[in-house]
């Protein structure tokens, strides 16, 4: 396939992915808007008003970047894991495997689908947050960079999960038992400064800490970690996840006999 044909194949996968999640918008887009609205009301307004300031911002302002990032993480991941596992489950993945599309285009197509859903949900969640608070943007370029890298990273991780999953239960195990706890412990609702030294140090091995902190820095200008180091960590994870995903696809692990 020449470059133009590869571009067409990529756009075909992306279009298919977007059509898929828009078709089931009540399962893919609406839940995040509702969940985040509840977070804003409960943590931001009801409880947050009693907490006072954190990092120099009201608790509501502090928590919103973390919640937006949480929505991006869960939706990017969920989109790819559900879509690719579904394709595996009904064997429609064979349509792609028997075609001449290079493995990296298949991967990029699915990842782009996950990124697009992550971004769309981020826009919805951000729009909802504006009903509750004002959002300053300290560094727009950093915000864009962190959003892009994070949604790519978690789309890739969703892909890895989909490849290894044998049942629909398997695609829920990682989000439930790994992703959600890591997100909650990644500084979405609190500053790492509040933790005792030991737990603050343990938190440094949680990749979600870097994602949330970097995004919060882009929005508010405050962070729990060094931003350059956080960006380097996210980038490193993206490269690692991309390399591994591509390896899985090229070798046909759990896809070919």
């Amino acid at each position: 396939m020449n470059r133009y044909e590869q571009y067409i194949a990529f756009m075909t996968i992306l279009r298919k992915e977007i059509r898929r999640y828009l078709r089931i918008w009540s399962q893919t887009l609406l839940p995040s808007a509702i969940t985040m609205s509840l977070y804003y009301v409960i943590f931001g307004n009801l409880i947050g008003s009693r907490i006072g300031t954190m990092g120099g911002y009201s608790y509501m302002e502090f928590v919103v970047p973390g919640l937006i990032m949480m929505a991006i993480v869960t939706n990017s991941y969920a989109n790819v894991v559900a879509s690719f596992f579904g394709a595996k489950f009904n064997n429609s993945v064979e349509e792609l495997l028997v075609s001449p599309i290079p493995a990296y285009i298949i991967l990029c197509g699915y990842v782009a689908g996950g990124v697009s859903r992550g971004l769309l949900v981020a826009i919805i969640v951000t729009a909802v947050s504006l009903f509750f608070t004002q959002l300053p943007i300290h560094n727009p370029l950093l915000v864009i960079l962190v959003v892009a890298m994070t949604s790519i990273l978690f789309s890739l991780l969703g892909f890895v999960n989909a490849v290894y999953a044998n049942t629909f239960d398997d695609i829920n195990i990682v989000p439930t038992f790994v992703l959600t706890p890591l997100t909650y412990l990644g500084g979405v609702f609190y500053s790492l400064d509040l933790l005792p030294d030991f737990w603050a140090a343990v938190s440094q091995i949680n990749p979600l800490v870097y994602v949330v902190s970097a995004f919060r820095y882009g929005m508010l200008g405050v962070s729990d970690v060094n931003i350059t180091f956080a960006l380097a960590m996210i980038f490193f994870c993206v490269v690692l996840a991309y390399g591994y995903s591509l390896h899985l696809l090229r070798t046909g692990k759990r896809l070919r006999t």
Partner: protein
Amino acid sequence: MTEALKIEGLQKTYENGFQALKGIDLTVEPGDFFALLGPNGAGKSTTIGIISSLVAKTAGKVWVHGVDIDQDFPGAKRFLGIVPQEFNFNVFEKVEDILTNQAGYYGIPLHEARERTEQFLERLGLTEKRDTRARMLSGGMKRRLMIARALVHKPRLLILDEPTAGVDIEMRRSMYDFLREINAAGTTIILTTHYLEEAEALCRNMAIINHGKIVTHRSIKDLLRDLHKEVFILDCAGDIPRSLDISGFDVQVLDDHTVQVVIEKGQDLAEVFAALHDRGIPVVSMRNEANRLEQMFVNLLEQSA
């Protein structure tokens, strides 16, 4: 001219140690309508899986229109259209989208993909179902959708793995006509089927595979010519005596009006008609006891076992 498909020494051993293919050699010429026959578990689907990249081979070489799959698998895949045994499309997608997406996977621009989709929906009688989700289609329509999908990028080699399984007679016949038409237009077709009369009706050449080995690989005409015995059932108007004997022929009276005759190579069936006529027993109709190819198929499988 380069072969549409050439296979040399193809082997496949699964992780559990089962040897599905034990070194098969196969050649399919361009423009051929070729049957790949064999009992369940013989290795047909494994062979197709290797050609289409869904199964990794253990050893051997495969060329599709001269392109070595080890050197340039994407290049080889461009020539291929695959209709697998099981439905493998996303049942939640619309019929039209399944075809348009498939064209996109082969790098065909959207406007052209839509034109081709239109064309194949029409040719396979699916136009009215274009906006229907695939899961709502009948079994026969799903089969037609699979064929349309395999053809939308205009492959030079179409491989159909039991395409008429579960399809009613009327639809099967219309599918035969369609396949003959695209074969006449130059598409090479490889067909695996359990219906041997289907292979006899459609295909010019064939290979029989059993226990991972090619048992025979030749033209269907040649194969049938080698069939030494043929069994005919004759329905007669008059009463047939139980003691009927026709010199030189193996004759068995089945009931008062039916007789079975085994014709060996070199014998003339007309002599049987004449003998019956002389005894005042007119023959009303005649049929083969079994499909000839089926008989040969069974013979070859028995020999290979």
